[in-house]
Each structure stands twice: as C-alpha cells, then as structure tokens.
C-alpha cells in the first residue's frame, strides 16, 4: 500500500481526519522549506502538499501567485523542488509528500524523466492543476508504475460521471475544491459542500480532502467533519507574506495556526 493510502487508512481507523498544509517551495527563500516541513509535522500535520512555483499560476489567487513569484525570484524550480523533498525524506520516512503544480515544468523535464526523479525523491503523490484525466492518462500511468499516486481535483460543478472518472484514474485521495474560484477565495458555503460530499461518496471510495477557503480552526473543524482531510494553503502563506522581514516569526505563526486546527479537528473547537 502507498504511504498515502496507509496514512488515510490509519487516520480512518483512529476516527481522525487528515490535516494537509500547502506551502510553496522556496517561499520566502529556498532554505526555509525543509525546516518548515519538519516543524509542521511536529505540529501534527498528516500529509504535506508542496506547491511547485510556476510563472503563470492560472488557478491561484493573489496570495499564492505572489508566493510563486517570490520563490521564482530565488530560482526555485521543479528539479530543485525534488531536491527539497529528498532532503526532507532523509529524516522523515512517514509523512506523505504531494507535489502540486502546473503541467509545463513537467513538459519541459519530460514525463518519464519526471516520474523517475519523483520516485527517486520518494514523492507520494502528484497533483497537476491543468492536467485533467482526458489529457493525463499517460502521465498517471507512468506515476502509478512507480507507486506514486496521481491526484485529481473535483469541483462543485463536477458531474457524477466526472467523479467516477477521477475515481478510476486517480489514487491516494481526491481533492475537492470547495468553491468555484481561485485559491484563497473567501466564499465557502458549508451547505453546498455537505450536499456535494454525499454525491462524491456515492461515486468514489477514495478518501476526499477538501480545500479552498479554509482559514482558521473553526473552518478546519467544520470541513473536517465533512471529508477525510482538510487542505489549508493561502492562510499559511499569508503568514509568510506578513512577515517577510522575519521568516522565523512566520514559521511560528504557521505552527500555531496548524496546532489550533489540529486541536479543533481532534477535540472540537
């Protein structure tokens, strides 16, 4: 079983939900990321999503766009991201790491070379925002052959047929985008999420992580009750942006927020 499947299985048996932070690799500078990852694990996260910076992040709101720009200013890239993941793995063998990014860096590297390099870096999952299953079957097969889970997005307007398609090509977990919009948007509608989750459950047995619009311990708890995992990104990256002159402070605030979310998810708010 993959590290991701194991993680969700163990959480499920313990009656707990996955806390999944998203940070952009190399933001605010390259050496920040690995210690940040370890500190997040200590704060109780279960899976880490690493955002691979891209020059044209079409599905991201301003907060993650600027994180990408800061990382690119330090020449962060897909190859260097794999290096960061490898460094993290040296001292952490249990926390799944998922790469989340856009297709063109993978196109530039070559699908096969990327799949091999990701396997060497012991990456557990790859989520490519602009690679729907119609175009992504080749890539998904290369990843699966190396025990890497291809992870797909679902949206509020995804049909039952789409959900079944993702269930067939995806593995690890499905990422439900809880609202129509870009990352960091603020109009989360809990009743809509609740209704949609019923449809998702009816069409897939994969764990469902829910993201977009999770800001604080209360939203994390509310969302956790509906799915199998909670993804939080812009709220963390905002801490980095607010403390560009003091990254240690940013790290501290991120840890505090994640610890509060963990606590709320496990014990109620």
């Amino acid at each position, binding site marked *: 079983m993959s590290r991701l499947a194991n993680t969700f299985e163990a959480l499920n048996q313990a009656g707990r939900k996955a806390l999944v932070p998203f940070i952009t690799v190399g933001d605010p500078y390259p050496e920040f990321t690995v210690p940040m990852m370890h500190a997040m694990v200590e704060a109780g996260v279960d899976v880490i999503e690493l955002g691979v910076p891209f020059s044209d992040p079409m599905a991201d709101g301003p907060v993650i766009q600027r994180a990408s720009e800061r990382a690119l200013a330090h020449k962060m890239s897909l190859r260097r991201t794999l290096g960061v993941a490898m460094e993290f793995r040296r001292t952490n063998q249990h926390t799944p790491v998922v790469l989340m990014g856009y297709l063109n860096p993978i196109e530039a590297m070559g699908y096969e070379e990327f799949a091999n390099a990701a396997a060497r870096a012991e990456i557990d999952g790859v989520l490519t925002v602009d690679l729907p299953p119609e175009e992504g079957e080749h890539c998904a097969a290369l990843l699966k052959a190396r025990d890497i889970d291809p992870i797909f997005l679902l*949206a509020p307007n995804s049909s039952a047929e789409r959900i079944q398609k993702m269930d067939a090509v995806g593995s690890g977990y499905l990422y439900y985008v809880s609202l129509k919009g*870009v990352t960091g948007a603020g109009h989360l509608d809990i009743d809509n999420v609740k209704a949609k989750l019923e449809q998702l459950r009816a069409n897939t047995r994969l764990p469902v992580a829910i993201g977009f619009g999770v800001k604080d311990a209360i939203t994390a708890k509310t969302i956790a009750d509906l799915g199998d995992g909670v993804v939080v990104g812009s709220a963390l990256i905002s801490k980095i942006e607010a403390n560009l002159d003091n990254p240690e402070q940013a790290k501290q605030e991120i840890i505090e927020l994640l610890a509060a979310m963990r606590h709320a998810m496990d014990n109620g708010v």
Partner: protein
Amino acid sequence: MKQLIKMTEKYTMPDARGHFGPYGGMFVAETLIPPIQELNAAYQRYLDDPDFIAELDKDLQYYVGRPSPLYHAERWSRELGGAQIYLKREDLNHTGSHKINNTVGQALLAKRMGKTRIIAETGAGQHGVATATVAARLGLECVVYMGAVDVARQSLNVYRMKLLGATVVAVESGSKTLKDALNEALRDWVTNVDNTFYIIGTVAGPHPYPAMVRDFQAIIGREAKQQYFDATGRLPDALVACVGGGSNAIGLFYPFIDASSVKLIGVEAAGDGIATGRHSAPLSAGRPGVLHGNRTYLMADDDGEIIETHSISAGLDYPGVGPEHAWLKDTGRAQYVSITDNEALDGFYALTRMEGIIPALESSHAMAYAMKLAPTMRQDQTLIINLSGRGDKDMQTMAKREGIEL
C-alpha cells in the same frame, strides 16, 4: 451557408477532443471542464444551425461592414518590382481590425446560451474594443483584463473600451502583458462560470476555442479566395499574415489549406532580434509545452517557466501561439518567419507613404516581410497580405518614437 463547417475537404483538424496532432487539447483546471463542454456543445450545435448562421451573416454584413475589399496595391507592387501585392482590408472593419469577426460570432453564441456577462483579455486593446463593442450592442456586462504595461502603451483603446461601457482591469501580476491578462480572465471565469462567457481573442486557449475562433475568422480567407478568383480566375501564389496568437493568420490561411500550390507564411515578432532573446517568436525560437489550456510552441526556459516576451506591437507580445500553427509548422504546410521591431517600422512607413494606408504595428510585420518576399517573385505572381488592422491605435507610440508630443 454550410461553409462555416465545411471549408476544407482533405484537411480535417482538429480531432473531436481538439487535438492538432500532439498540439491543442483541453488542459484546464477541473472547474472549467463543465463550462468548456457546455461551450463546445453550443458551438457544435449552432455552427450547423441555419438561423444562427443567418444572424451571423447579417451582423457581418451590416454591422462589421463585410465583405472587406481585396485591394491591389499597384504602386507598392511596382516599387518593389516583383509579385503583385493584394491587401485584405480587415483594417476597414468596424472597430478597425479583424478581431470583430470573432467577437460578433462569440457574442451571438453567448446570447443563445443565455449568458449575461462577458469577459475578455486584450493586448493591443483591439480585441478588448471589439468585445466591448458587441457587449454594448447586446446590453451585456463586460469586463476586460489588460496587462498594466499594455494599459499604458494603448491608452487610447482603454478609453474606447470605457466609453463603450466596459470595465477595464489593469493586471499587475507577472509580466503585466497579454499572457497575464489571459491568466486573470481565466481566474475570473472559474469564479463566475455560471453566468459568464469568456470571449478569447485569438486561436489560443483550450478546445474548442482554437477551432471556434478559426471558424469565425475564416471569413477572411473565404472572401479573399472568392474575390481573387473573381478578378483573375486563379489562386494566389502566397499568403502572408502576422502571428500573435495567430487568429488573423489562420483566418486567411484556413480556406486555402487544401490548395497546396498556395504558400502560407506566418510572420512572428522578432522584437530586438531573435538572437537577443527579446522577442515574441515561439514558432521560430520556442519549444513545445502547455500554457493556457493547450499544447503548442512556447517561449519558456529549461525549467518550463514562461519567459517574458518583447515586441513593439502589444498585439504580438505573447509567449504562445495557436496550436494549429504549431501543427502547420511541424507538417511543413505553413512556414513561419520573423520580423524585428525596426523592420516592422519600415513596413509601417512604406505602406503609409506608398498607398496612403496606415497599418497597425502588428500588421506592419506582415508588410515588412512582404517587402522582402515580393522582389524575389515574378510580376505575374501574387501575394495576398492580411492587413489585420489600422494604425490609429498606434499614433501615440509612433509620435513618441519620433519625439512628438500629441
């Protein structure tokens, strides 16, 4: 007018999922899959619908002012001493460029689909103006995204869009040009998918846009073919058009694709020169990759990050190109060349002084290449150049270059 669908017999690209060989496709985030499928269904349905075609034809004739003339530039041809040069006068269309052919078509689709809000991206502002124009006419809300750099260099068009009732959003992210405007329009679309129709201005984006925009622009080539045939009983020897995203070029080329004796030549912007890296010529000096929903030639670095482009003309300042051009290049059916900023200026002045027609800086790239090509051809041969737009919008840029305060 079934022609809209059946314009070529042998050439049948793209396939049902929008692929031109390895190019094209539908590379978008999941939220955009349903609206793109909805759009594709509407597009397939209405291109076959006599009522829709009749309405489109009527708008093209009475609102756009079609057919546009095919003008024999006799003095310029004589001066260059080679091929006979004909200009397809898209500059004479309402709003001053070929862009309106496509916005009229897409706006009619939006209306039939019951969408109440229109968004668009624009570089030079020509597509933004053409979109704001049709939105005003149909009483639809209109938001146009434009890179902050372009807002500054095309301020006249910004004012026109505002006059027409559109909201113009200056995009401050990335390189602040056309590609960033496209990113921002896509972000708007995922947020407002239910009531919003995204009118893309060129043959880029996910399927069905490249095919759909081509089909709306193919009126250019259809008319030119008929007009030239009526005048001479023959086909022309070569077609020349500038290539930004590639919509005016494919619009001219498409009805001629099966006619293998007709050379198709696309002209990219070489900016300061290909060797300097400061250009916008992905077909001449780029590599295949995926951006804005399709696979095509792109200007990207070894890590796959999109690199900044440069051209004197905002409308050519784009790091990608329509996927069909990538296919036509690889198969050798079309040929792609490039023209520097300075050469384009030569083309601009030549047409202005020789024929009394002031071309857009985008179109000036095609003029400049024709100046090189025509003298290598015989006097009984013919070159049709797409004059995609008029130069009014570039008066400030040109005056500033000449040190004149307007």
